[in-house]
């Protein structure tokens, strides 16, 4: 520990002596200190302006949708009425009480946007997790064992690849809507199905990587030391695929949020009164409402666009940062 601290100090002092270099490249860095691959990736990532913008949008979205509901007193399905009359405050324009106005049911749009964001982001992460879980296990097994298991799993991948995604999600959405369960719970089933349908891409990439890694010396070494296959796959092979997985997961998150929005927009995803950004746009399906009360649907659309864009910026930046061929 002490030696490390000393070295750190030394490095710091070294840096102070050296004049600041505007565009240090890797070779000059390596001369005065050792850069781990992780630091290198981090450095490349932070140098990309778009990914920084993406990161800040994401931080904002997380604060907005996970902290926001804690701060506000309104609940997402609270119907506001005028005090003296028993009338619902339909389509109130933005005001001090309702920052984004109210929608056709007299509910506060701002609060619904926050809860909607919570649902969209949660769905994204859960689905990506399910996809990676299935994809890594099946892809890893297929790549490692090859032959019969490989053939079987790859045919399964082919079958799942050919199932038309949107139509099937619509049908599943219709089935889930009729199930006798709590309206706020049915989204979990949808997440599971989306994950079940979407793992094939990840399985393919994991398999392809493992096929090429399996022949390398370090894998021969693991075999020679007599490690169990499961340990060799998940401890030695899969970590080598993690950079690609992170990139796919980030880019996939955006795609899943888009799909959820489209499903909810068509009325097959998240069901009102539970809000989601997609079904908030669906709620205003007549053109005169669209025209007269833009605050009820435009913010939701822009939040979808911004969030997905941010995930794409970050994913793109990560891909460039992980790619050793990209020099800047």
């Amino acid at each position, binding site marked *: 520990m002490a030696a490390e601290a000393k070295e750190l100090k030394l490095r710091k002092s070294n840096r102070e002596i050296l004049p600041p270099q505007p565009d240090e490249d890797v070779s000059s860095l390596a001369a005065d200190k050792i850069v781990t691959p992780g630091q290198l990736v981090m450095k490349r990532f932070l140098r990309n*302006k*778009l990914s920084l913008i993406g990161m800040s949008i994401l931080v904002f979205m997380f604060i907005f949708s996970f902290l926001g509901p804690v701060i506000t007193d309104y609940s997402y399905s609270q119907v506001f009425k005028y005090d003296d009359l028993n009338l619902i405050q339909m389509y109130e324009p933005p005001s001090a009480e309702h920052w984004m106005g109210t929608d056709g049911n007299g509910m506060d749009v701002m609060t619904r946007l926050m809860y909607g964001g919570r649902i969209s982001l949660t769905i994204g992460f859960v689905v990506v997790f399910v996809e990676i879980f299935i994809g890594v296990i099946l892809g890893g097994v297929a790549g490692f064992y090859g032959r019969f298991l490989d053939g079987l799993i790859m*045919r399964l991948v*082919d*079958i799942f*690849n*050919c*199932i*038309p995604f*949107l*139509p*099937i999600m*619509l*049908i*599943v959405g*219709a*089935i889930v*809507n*009729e199930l006798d369960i709590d309206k706020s719970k049915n989204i979990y089933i949808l997440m599971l199905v989306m994950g079940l349908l979407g793992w094939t891409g990840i399985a393919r990439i994991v398999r392809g990587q493992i096929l090429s890694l399996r022949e390398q010396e370090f894998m021969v070494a693991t075999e020679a030391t007599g490690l169990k296959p499961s340990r060799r796959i998940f401890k030695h092979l899969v970590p080598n695929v993690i950079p690609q997985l992170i990139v796919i997961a980030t880019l996939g998150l*955006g795609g899943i949020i*888009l799909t959820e*929005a*489209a499903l909810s*927009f*068509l009325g097959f995803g998240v069901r009102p009164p539970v809000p989601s950004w*997609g079904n908030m*746009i669906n709620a205003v399906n007549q*053109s005169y409402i*669209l*025209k007269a009360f833009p605050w009820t*649907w*435009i913010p939701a*659309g822009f939040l*979808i*666009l911004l969030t*997905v*864009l941010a*995930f*794409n*910026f970050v994913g*793109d930046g990560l891909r460039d940062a992980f790619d050793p*061929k990209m020099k*800047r």
Partner: protein
Amino acid sequence: MRQYIIRRLLISVIIIFGVSIILYSIIRAMPVNYIDSVMRGNPLITPARIDEMKDLYGLNDGIFEGYFKWLGNAVKGDFGNSFISGQPVLEDISSRMWISFWLSFISLIFQLLIAVPLGIIAATKQYSRTDYAVTVLALVGISMPGFFFAIILQQVFAMGLGWLPLQGMIDARNHQFMTTFQQYMDYLVHFIMPITVLTLISIGGLMRYTRTNMLEVLNSDYIRTARAKGLSEKTVIYKHAFRNTLIPIVTILGGTLPSLFAGAMITESVFAIEGLGRAGLNAISRGDIPYIMAFNTFLAILTLLGTLMADITYAVVDPRVRLS
């Protein structure tokens, strides 16, 4: 090569078989029942009559029985009659397919005309302002929810400015009195917004793809050779590099060809275009089992054909690839 294609096609048959089993069991689990939804609220219909109707439509069969009945007929090329229109499903599909095809085909041409040049410019000026602008445009296209963009276009150009028709394919009042040329123009005017939406939401992928491939080509040795020979930058980029970038682009184009027929569900339904996608959505919400089955099987076949065509064009265009 021929052997490879035959083997792939045989595997495809097995895959389609697997897909159709999954599809059928999911579809039969649907809560919407066509007979129930049509007969609902009709006081003259007795339960016995409903049961009889369900027998007639094959809705009383179990999943296995129903599936093998469907499969037996489908193998013979008979996909049954659509519950909604009463016509053979294949006729329904083939009549709507071309509307969807023209919509996506025109959009594809626009995508190519915009995405390929922009992708190449972005790659030649890597990390410049232009590159950033193209990247942002591409990612905005990828991230844009199609339905949201469609509604905004409708608000601005149809409701606000009144330049374009809101939805539909023809001007219902005047279409029949028009000359043939005017009728085509009428279609065209109605197609402007849907094509814009389709182009924007799918342009990003192609642009990124072109840029990545162009970058790869620009970093290769033969480009360095061309520059070392003293060729002008224009010749290097538009003659040597561009031709090699075309290889992967042609490949994915081969892959998209079948999917042109699939129809765009969301765009078509927002703009009320009578293509395959809108009909599919309608069939799903009303429980038209024969149509849904045929439509989804059709989509699965298109996907398989797409990957096969991509692989074949790849081998044809790039002599280094050997199919085995």
